[in-house]
């Protein structure tokens, strides 16, 4: 057990990993480096291959092609019990016949570690449940079981901690609380966390770096802000938050800006946010970046005229509008309710404006609907 694989430390590196089941390719030629000490999220819809990727890192599946390294050690075909990697399983998979104490002590005992008591009590303190040591898992609430599953993994101080939809079974309020707690614990213990989720908000709250996966491939990888402000594909633009994608073409340049024509109206966008292959583009703007104004009100920046309010939804912190544009597309606009101005009414004729810097451009041959039709997933799938 004390072979080189078990003491491996360092960055996790997946090199051209493919996993096929018969004709179905779950993970497709995936390469990825996760730096030591980071909180990394694999984000994607059900069936995108994120859980398969995680299981290959854990050793529960073997790649069809490719290799996995931890630091300089090749762990591609190492048995799960020989990897310095622990997992927080979806639905926790606590041992129902053992007490909470023995659940947490399980990994320590297998490795023949001394001072099991001290280590277990310390980690029980970290997850703030020291009083439950002698209970059985079925006597605990979902949130408590989640923390014990986490404690059972981190007590081993693994080189890598894998979290497979760890908060999926919790209700919304508890999930928010656990997100903050998990992030705090990661900082506290300083381990590398790899977190798999389909919940974009969860990934953005916790992770330093997010890899968005779709159909077995990584669509884009970066910091949450980077992915949100500068998506490279329609899938990322739609899966992380919401986007308005407007068909158009690039018609010129103006210093560091590009000029685009959207149905006869000219707008500017930063060159660094254009991912177009040729002049055909989709111009992307997040709904909260738009400002609505009545026709006679002066505006600055990019302006699209000729809009008409189709629908108004007041949701407290903001008001959401559907604005019909002259070319027949409905745009989504979120306005903060912070200016004391009465909301616009259905039927109002309006202009839409925004700062050019908030514009991104995608390839014009993309499917503008990609990533929008993702059905809320059944957690047990994949």
């Amino acid at each position, binding site marked *: *057990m004390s072979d080189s694989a078990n003491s491996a430390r360092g960055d996790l590196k997946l090199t051209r990993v493919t996993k096929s089941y018969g004709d179905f390719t779950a993970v497709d030629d995936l390469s990825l480096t996760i730096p030591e000490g980071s909180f990394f999220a694999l984000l994607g819809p059900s069936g995108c291959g994120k859980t398969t990727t995680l299981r290959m890192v*854990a*050793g*529960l599946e073997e790649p069809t092609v490719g290799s996995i390294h931890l630091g300089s050690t090749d762990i591609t075909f190492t*048995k*799960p*019990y020989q990897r310095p*990697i*622990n*997992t927080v*399983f*979806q*639905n926790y*998979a*606590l*041992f*129902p*016949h053992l007490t909470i104490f023995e659940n947490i002590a*399980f*990994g320590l005992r*297998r*490795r023949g570690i001394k001072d099991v008591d001290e280590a277990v009590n310390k980690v029980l303190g970290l997850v703030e449940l020291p009083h439950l040591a002698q209970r059985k898992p079925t006597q605990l609430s979902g949130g408590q079981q989640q923390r014990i599953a986490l404690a*059972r993994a981190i007590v*081993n101080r693994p080189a890598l901690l894998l979290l497979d939809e760890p908060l999926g079974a919790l209700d919304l309020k508890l999930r928010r609380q656990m997100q903050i707690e998990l992030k705090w614990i990661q900082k506290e213990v300083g381990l590398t966390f790899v977190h798999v989720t389909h919940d974009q908000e969860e990934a953005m709250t916790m992770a330093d770096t997010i890899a968005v996966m779709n159909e077995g491939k990584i669509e884009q990888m970066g910091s949450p802000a980077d992915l949100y402000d500068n998506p490279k594909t329609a899938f990322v633009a739609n899966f992380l938050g919401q986007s308005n994608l407007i068909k158009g073409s690039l018609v010129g340049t103006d210093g560091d800006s590009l000029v685009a024509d959207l149905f006869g109206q000219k707008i500017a966008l930063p060159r660094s946010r254009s991912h177009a292959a040729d002049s055909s583009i989709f111009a992307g703007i997040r709904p909260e970046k738009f400002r609505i104004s009545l026709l006679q009100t002066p505006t600055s920046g990019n302006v699209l005229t000729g809009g008409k309010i189709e629908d108004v939804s007041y949701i407290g912190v903001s008001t959401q509008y559907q604005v019909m544009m002259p070319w027949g597309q409905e745009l989504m606009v979120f306005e903060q309710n912070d200016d004391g101005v009465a909301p616009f009414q259905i039927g109002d004729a309006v202009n839409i404006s925004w700062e050019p810097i908030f514009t991104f451009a995608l390839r014009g041959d993309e499917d503008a609907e990609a990533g929008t039709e993702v059905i809320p997933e059944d957690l047990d799938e994949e």
Partner: protein
Amino acid sequence: MKKIRTPYLLLLPGFAFLLTFFIFPILSLAQVSTATPISGGDIGEFEQTFRFSNYLEAFLDNREHFGRSLIYAVLATLIALLISYPLAYALAFKSGKYKNALLVLVVAPFFTSFLLRTVAWKQILGEEGFVVPTLRTLGLISESTTLTSTAGAVVLGMAYNFLPFMTLPLYASIDRIDPRTLEASGDLYANGFTTFRRVTLPLSMPGVVAGTLLTFIPAAGDYVNAELLGGPNNTMIGNVIQSRFLIPDYPTTSALSFMLMAAILIIVTIYIRKAGTDEVV
């Protein structure tokens, strides 16, 4: 008040059944067990004399059979457990879409009567069967060795006959284990064997306890296998009870039956205390 009576009403049919077909016969058995033949009466006529030494005599005359019954039953149970555990494990975790078809195969022997199946074993293991000549050709047994009329045949016959009683509770219990707990065990540095010892086996203990009881109890009282597959040196307590019953020697039969029941009850109680879990008993 009606609400409170309902559960008792629901219990009534079962209670009436047990009273008629279990309690009354047991009382009658108890009564006969201390009776003696009427002097000068016909064969089969007994009178109540409260002769408790019937028990002592019956025990002293048949100690050997009691011992043999328990040993055979324990051996048959162990063999059935060793065969059933991998079978039930494979059924629960590895059979995929064939699970239901394979479960039908497990209970398929029940489509034929117990007696017929044992007779079939007699044929298979007999001189005319294919097993003995094959083993002789291979030189695995000598020309004079036979397979029937041996303790091995009796034990294997019982292991075979009671196998589904072992397999089904084991299967039910293993099938309930979340495969992710086994993955979690591997993830937490336990190899295959340790995972079996620390996770799979403890979690399947309810099935092990239920299966061993369902095999051991009928095996301890069985006489068909010893009758058909055993020889004069393999008779079990069930055979004694049966032959005494035919004489008829009802007092000895009854006393032996009570002692067998008591022995099984004591063994089972100790066993459950040692191996039992919250889920069973």
